[in-house]
């Protein structure tokens, strides 16, 4: 495991893993979408609009999982000051924002026919919106601080502060009376959702997870290359101007 903490070894590992992960994600998503549209039954109340659940729920899970991945990377940044953890953190933020946005948009589209409104200010919706705003704030922080290692430490601290929101999202449907329905998959006493709907949902969730790891690895690879390019350009500039050699050595 430690061998892959070296960025060069990590790049080699990523190059070998990415095609397999991408293929697995493609297969899982294809199977999941097929099951969603042709096998999974319509809901007796909601009709075929229930099918948006197969996008909405995995996107919500991934939006939160991505934050947890970012939190572990943030610990890696603060405790070990490892550049790979910095890259993993930075790469996860836009992905998490994208999954959370998909969750919010599909939820809104689902809410219009079912609840009669695009949006309600209940605890679940608001806490997910706050998660989205935290992602945007983190992206803004990454873009504002120029020095990558310094940006990573600042983002790590903000990530750890913002992690309080994750349990609030998870338990918001239990703590408050919300229009959003309570959890029906991960609950005491087993899922309350029918197996004919649970299986397509889990396969879609697997597809989303594989998609996330594919994109995350690709983004980490890009970030490592971007850092190398930055260092090379500083060194090239230093070769022309001896006064900058000290900065390049850092």
């Amino acid at each position, binding site marked *: 495991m430690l061998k892959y903490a070296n960025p060069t070894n990590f790049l080699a590992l990523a190059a070998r893993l990415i095609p397999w992960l991408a293929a697995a994600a493609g297969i899982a998503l294809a199977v999941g979408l097929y099951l969603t549209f042709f096998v999974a039954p319509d809901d007796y109340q909601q009709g075929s609009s229930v099918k948006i659940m197969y996008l909405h729920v995995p996107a919500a899970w991934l939006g939160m999982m991505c934050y947890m991945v970012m939190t572990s990377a943030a610990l890696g940044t*603060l405790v070990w000051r490892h550049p790979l953890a910095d890259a993993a953190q930075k790469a996860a933020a836009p992905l998490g924002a994208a999954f959370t946005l998909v969750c919010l948009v599909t939820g809104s589209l689902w809410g219009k026919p079912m609840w009669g409104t695009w949006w309600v200010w209940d605890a679940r919706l*608001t806490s997910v919106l*706050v998660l989205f*705003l*935290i992602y*945007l*704030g983190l992206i*803004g*922080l990454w873009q*504002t*601080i120029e020095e990558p*290692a*310094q940006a990573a*430490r*600042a983002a*790590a*601290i*903000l990530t*750890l*502060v*913002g992690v309080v*929101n994750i349990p*609030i999202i998870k338990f918001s449907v239990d703590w408050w009376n919300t229009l959003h329905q309570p959890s029906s998959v991960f609950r005491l006493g087993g899922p309350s959702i029918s197996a004919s709907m649970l299986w397509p949902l889990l396969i879609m969730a697997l597809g989303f997870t594989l998609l996330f790891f594919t994109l995350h690895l690709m983004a980490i690879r890009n970030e490592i290359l971007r850092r190398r390019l930055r260092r090379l350009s500083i060194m090239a500039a230093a070769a022309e101007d001896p006064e900058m050699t000290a900065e390049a050595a*850092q």
Partner: protein
Amino acid sequence: MNSPLAALFWRELRIARSIGGGGAMGVVFFLILVSLTPFAIGPDLNLLSRIGPAILWIAALLATLLGLDRLFQGDADDGSLDLFMMSSTPMELVVLVKCAAHWTLTALPLIAAAPLLGLTLGMEPASLAGVAASLFAGTPALTLLGAIGAALTAGLRRGGLLMAVLILPLTTPILIFGVASAAAASGGTVPFHTPFLILCGLSLMAIAGAPFAAAAALRAREA
């Protein structure tokens, strides 16, 4: 009172006074925000008195946060921040004392002004007391959360706006329970102390946790 922390507290107050009353400016900003709202909503006193606590809280939130971006900026610019870091006094306590001074300078006048402004919005006496009490309990959490943002953005060129973007989402629970306890004071189904105690809890958590995050963020600026 010769301890370094007391000295720091008085230093903060002296600096604020010498550069022209940061506290007074915050109250003026608060006054402008509150008086703009009736122009936007219309001078319907029934409506204004109902949403009065919310108006006062939003205005207090913005007035507190807008003053906070300078919390560490001046010290970062003139090098006193580096002196604080090198001193034997823990940075966490320095942050806490700076926040206490900032809260005394900006939040206390704001809390004093809030009931007066509430009168112009046609709020009931019970509701006025509720707003003042909830602001008193909630503004420490706002100041301390803002200190994390100020520490993260100290020394950045576009720091002010970024700080608001980073911190405002995290202030949602404080706003929710602050307005809830202010509204509960003037009657309603929830007893006043339920949201009020949660608000106090949020402030205590911020006092316990935020100085560590802000101090870590200040250290992260160094290599």
